[in-house]
């Protein structure tokens, strides 16, 4: 019989150990399931975890894939810290990309890269507006934000499908559901390295991540706003006594996370696709939930978590090509990983005690 005994204070060691142990356990159980379903476990292991590092351009593709995950994950961190469960980042990503795309396509001849500031801002607004719906319903009418934000994902997916097949369809697209290509000013270029050329798909959008991580670190650790979010999440009663306005915090974190998801959408489309199409996200909004948790809801942690999860995503792509394993299988790892991470959170606060009998 296992019993849990509260620790006097949160165990510092566990904060570092828990994510590492979680990854080890996840790999173990994942491989067990693969073996059970008749796949070669060692080859799967190699494809998913090692092959993404096998070439330098593949390593840079990890960064490209991690980019939207880190941006969305940072926004979700603010929500989850304050106990607001925004699980509709996927929809906010799409709506951000869509609004920015609409603006980009409205100026077909623009060339200056300063235009990107406008499209990125539009993406932020698009995502934030989409997150504003659950925010206002939650604070005014006490409607569950989990269900509303998730329902809006389906609505956003159908909406972009409608727009790209209808109003914004390029008449020259030979019947394909694609918009016109973005103007030069709305495209994010690949980074040229002197003497090497391009490294895979590595693009300037990655700079946004390098800006975002320190800014969010300062916001969370050094400002009153960040302090309020921390208190609200860890001690809601204390926040109440301190007079923090819960509703305005809820709205703020939802708008910020929606906005960041929207920005991730703009960067993804402007850098990697260059036009609107029915599918612009590939589950980034949902995967970012795992990234936020694996990163222990801290900006620097999320940076590393984004890179780890992006590796697995790329590895799964490789596994699909070489072994015919369906790509959705990453969900399997993500789910198990989340289970163990959450268990780690319990172990931070409680000691396990084994006792005989019941």
């Amino acid at each position, binding site marked *: 019989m*296992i*019993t*849990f005994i*509260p620790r006097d204070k949160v165990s510092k060691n566990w904060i570092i150990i828990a994510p590492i142990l979680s990854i080890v356990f996840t790999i173990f159980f994942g491989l067990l*399931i693969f073996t059970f*379903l008749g796949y070669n476990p060692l080859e799967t292991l190699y494809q998913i975890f090692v092959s993404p590092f096998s070439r330098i351009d593949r390593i840079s593709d990890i960064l490209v894939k991690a980019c939207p995950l880190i941006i969305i994950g940072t926004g979700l961190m603010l929500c989850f810290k304050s106990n607001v*469960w925004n*699980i509709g980042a996927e929809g906010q990503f799409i709506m951000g990309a869509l609004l920015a795309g609409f603006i980009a396509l409205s100026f077909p001849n623009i060339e200056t890269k300063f235009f990107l500031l406008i499209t990125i801002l539009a993406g932020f607004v698009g995502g934030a507006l989409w997150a504003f*719906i659950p925010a206002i*319903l939650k604070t005014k*009418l*006490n*409607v*569950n934000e*989990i*269900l*509303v934000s*998730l*329902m*809006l994902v*389906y*609505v956003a997916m*159908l*909406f972009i*499908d*409608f727009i790209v*097949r*209808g109003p914004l369809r390029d008449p020259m697209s030979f019947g394909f559901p694609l918009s016109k290509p973005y103007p030069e000013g709305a495209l994010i270029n690949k980074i040229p390295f002197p003497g090497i050329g391009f490294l895979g798909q590595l693009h300037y959008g990655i700079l946004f991540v390098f800006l975002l991580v320190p800014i969010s670190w300062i916001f969370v650790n050094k400002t009153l706003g960040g302090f309020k979010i921390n208190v609200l999440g860890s001690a809601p009663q204390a926040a109440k006594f301190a007079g923090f306005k819960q509703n305005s915090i809820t709205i703020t974190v939802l708008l910020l996370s929606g906005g960041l998801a929207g920005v991730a959408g703009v960067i993804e489309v402007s850098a990697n696709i260059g036009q609107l199409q029915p599918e612009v996200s590939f589950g980034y909004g*949902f995967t970012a*939930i*795992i990234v936020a*948790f694996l990163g222990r809801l801290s900006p620097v942690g999320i940076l590393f978590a984004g890179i780890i999860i992006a590796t697995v995503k790329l590895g799964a792509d490789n596994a699909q090509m070489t072994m*015919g*394993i*369906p*790509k*959705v*299988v*990453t*969900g*399997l*790892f*993500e*789910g*198990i990983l*989340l*289970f163990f991470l*959450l*268990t780690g*959170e*319990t172990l931070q606060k*409680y000691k396990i005690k084994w006792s005989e009998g019941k």
Partner: protein
Amino acid sequence: MEALILTIIATSIPLLLAATGELLAEKSGILNLGVEGMMLSGAVGALGAVLWLENPYYGIIAGALSGVLMASIFSVFTINFMTNQVATGLGLTIFATGLTGLAGAPLVGKTIPSLPKIEIFLLSDIPLIGSILFKQDFVAYLSIAIIIFISFFLKYSKSGIILRAVGDDHQSAHSVGYPVKKIRWYATCFGGMCAGIGGAYIPLVLTPHWSEGMTAGRGWIALALVVFASWIPWRIIVGALIFGGITIAQLVGQARGWPIPSQLLSMMPYIATIIALTMISGRLSKNNSVVPSSLGKPFFGSQ
């Protein structure tokens, strides 16, 4: 007309089952956001079993078992390891999406026989009503039986009253000596069983082949239905029929060429869910007593 009503009923049954199971779990204080994942597992389990054993009834059993298996994973983590229920439920859905994608891959392109209709002697001969109410498949009858059972169980049985006590105040229930964790385990697994059968119903009756993520958000709508029903079982029937009706209405609209883009019609069930939640939640916040007070809160007391 008759065919239309029958389709609406068939569409609402997975919602009905999943929502009823989740209602019981929530009454015991467990918020399981993994319903979508449990339904997916039920669907893939049923497909696999029917392809293997060539009898649609084994599909129901396999669906139920797959749902229970998923619910047990959820229970181990949330009840025994005291993890956050919201995050664990999300994890379960993500996990099950991956697992069913993997397990379903070899099933792609294969079709299974549909669940047979059972005519109830004499009653099925009543005009109109007969063919709608008494010429249904086994799962349809089962779902109504489950709702009636749960209504009585929660209201009149001793176990039901204990279960509600656990959901309303686990600390007191624990100090009186009720096994909080054990009761929650049972309730969650019952929820998993219902969601699994609901998921199984989708390939067994609605679309007889596997496609990734074939539940298409039904698990989430089922979660919303519980709120919509204000945790009162029979109201789930009303809610599920409304959503079945909306889903079919948009399909009919697409088929008849209504001058509305098909994507906008397809949004209807999701938008209707948001509207329904909004209308109900305003009233619920004034009358808090229907929401189980310990819902979603982990129970730390040792057993």
